[in-house]
């Protein structure tokens, strides 16, 4: 980029609202901020209209802090709770139609590559479980099969939260929700396996109560998507309203669910490992030197 994006127009400094001045002077653009510095810099997403105690909001804040290059990142989404927060962030958010976020991101990623060549322009899809696994399913899977180079993040609250609590494909079997009055009849969709089959280069499942881990997976996913291929992160971001989780128990619920059925998993393709090691110095992926075998 042009960090000009986050400068004052000369002569306008004193007239800009404080929010804006804070973003220019104390924002994360052009700096390497981390989740452990939260509270000491102006976040790209701060104010939002989400419900009190919303785990999804915490996850979105962490994810945006983790973007390796926020000054060159464009987010894409669709209808859902997450959209209400992301569209208030200080980076562009593209909303196309219901469930077409991975199609829009495919075109956006290709258009930006044509125009900017090797200069990274990170495209990140952030959409809910309904948007990703139900209405957007075809476009999500096809973007993966086509090896489109952008990151897809599913905010999995296991329900249509924004429309008032209807069953989604990611709801667990048996859950009684609107439109599933007798309980959900089929299993939670295994999108992780589908991502693997469709050829994603990096796949991770996370919960929001481990900020450093969220930061780590987001960073890897975005970097790998630049050059290697599609990446997928599935995050458990409970809906404390529809699942009646007391506000002060939201993180406890996340921990319980993590231990029970949403364990941290991470898949990194060999190509992605080599890329992270060579390009970005990830020591964990540097091939270990063969152990010398000595014979007595």
């Amino acid at each position, binding site marked *: *980029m042009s960090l000009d994006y986050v400068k004052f127009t000369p002569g306008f400094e004193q007239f800009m609202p404080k929010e804006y001045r804070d973003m220019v002077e104390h924002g994360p653009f052009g700096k390497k901020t981390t989740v452990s510095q939260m509270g000491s810099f102006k976040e790209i997403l701060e104010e939002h209209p989400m419900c009190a105690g919303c785990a999804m909001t915490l996850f979105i804040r962490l994810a945006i802090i983790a973007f390796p290059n926020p000054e060159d990142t*464009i987010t894409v989404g669709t209808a859902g709770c997450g959209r209400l927060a992301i569209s*208030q962030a200080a980076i*562009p958010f593209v909303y196309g*139609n219901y469930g077409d976020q991975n199609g829009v991101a495919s*075109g956006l990623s290709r*258009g930006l590559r044509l125009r900017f060549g090797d200069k990274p*322009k990170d495209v990140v899809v952030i959409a809910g479980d309904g948007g990703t696994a139900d209405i957007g399913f075809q476009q999500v899977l096809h973007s993966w099969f086509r090896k489109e180079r952008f990151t897809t993040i599913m905010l999995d609250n296991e329900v249509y939260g924004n429309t008032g609590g209807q069953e989604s494909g990611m709801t667990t079997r048996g859950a009684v929700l609107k439109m599933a009055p007798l309980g959900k009849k089929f299993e939670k969709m295994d999108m992780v396996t589908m991502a693997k089959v469709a050829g994603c280069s990096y796949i991770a499942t996370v919960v929001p109560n481990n900020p450093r881990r969220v930061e780590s997976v987001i960073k890897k996913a975005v970097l790998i998507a630049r050059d290697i291929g599609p990446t997928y992160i599935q995050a458990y971001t409970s809906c404390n309203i529809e699942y009646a989780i007391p506000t002060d128990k939201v993180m406890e619920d996340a921990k319980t669910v993590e231990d029970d059925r949403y364990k941290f998993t991470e898949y990194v393709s060999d190509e992605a490992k080599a890329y992270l090691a060579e390009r970005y110095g990830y020591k964990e992926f540097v091939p270990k030197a063969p152990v010398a075998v000595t014979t007595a």
Partner: protein
Amino acid sequence: MEPISVIGTKNKKGQVFTDPRVMMRDAPRTPSFYTGSEVIKEAIRRASIDVMIAYPITPQSEAAALIGELFAEGYIGDYFRGESEFAVMSQCAGAAFGGARVFTTTAGPGTMRAMENFPMWAGARLPIQCIVTCRGINSPLSIQPDTIEISYLMQTGMLVWHAETAQDFYDWILMGYMVSEEPEVHLPLALCCDGFFVTHTKDVVDLTPTDMCLPPYDPYRSPVPCMDMECPPVRMMRDPFIMKSNYISYATHASWQQEVWAAAERSRKHTIAWLNGLIETENSDADILIVTSGTAVSQGREAIRLLADEGIRVGLVKIKTLRPWPEEEIREATKHATHIIVPEFNVIGWMAKEIKATIPRSERVVAGPRVCGGMTMPPEIIVEEIKRALGIRSTTLAARG
């Protein structure tokens, strides 16, 4: 800072970026015998397209595939087959949000499947061009010519033009980008033609030189920010208007919708200059006028010739743009007519309805003849319709045995 012009420089294929007015009006033309699909390819070869996204559906499949050949030859930046028309139109939107010049094609049920995207394109001010090679959308399934889908497109906020011939098509594809991309317009264009009649027939078309092409799209002339993180200032929003139930939200949405339609109106002066008017007339002082668009115009021309042989003088109004709708032009052209015949290739007669809503004394409009479902429109049925309107007995086509 001095503006840098690309005019006169070459693209990677050696084509010279040419002032569109010079290219379209002054440059020598070469008559070429091509199908409509091939004409689309030749126009796109000269259109400096960044991204084309394709999906097969009759009768546009051939054109969409031919543009793949252009991609293979290096004339287009990126090209692929999407997974459905809805996906394709979303992918087109993404590329346009990123600042690319985008082209696609669709038809009939594909148009309907993609429909959610069209008002979104218009609202997002994406100057994408979509060729619509019209065909039936009804059940039982039909792949045959029928223009009913245009009536849906006309309510989306897009510019909608209706080509009669392959020559119209060739010129309007190139001119369409020039109108669509004007900063005060910046709207998508649905460039329609009647499937098969135009796409699958051969015609002589005068082509501009192969070594000339349109200047590239400049996304920074867009009236809304390009989504590339290159346009200061930082985008910050509080309380997006999407979900709010209050007056300010309603007023914002209302004013934006009005602005989209106002932008279509502002396209008039550019379109008039490029297309030499939104309508074209012949003998509009005649008592009887045929007023229509697309290949119904061609059939009307034949009917006029047949009637002239019998001493009946009939004039013609060819409507080129449906959005913007040439309201004043149609009123003026039809002011002396006693009978206004509107032949159409669809069952509902959307063109006749539009005309009735436009002119005084709408009882002058004869809403027909109409054919649909792939039926052809022999000029004789237009002749018959006119004679019936005039109270002249004629032998019906059915009676011809």
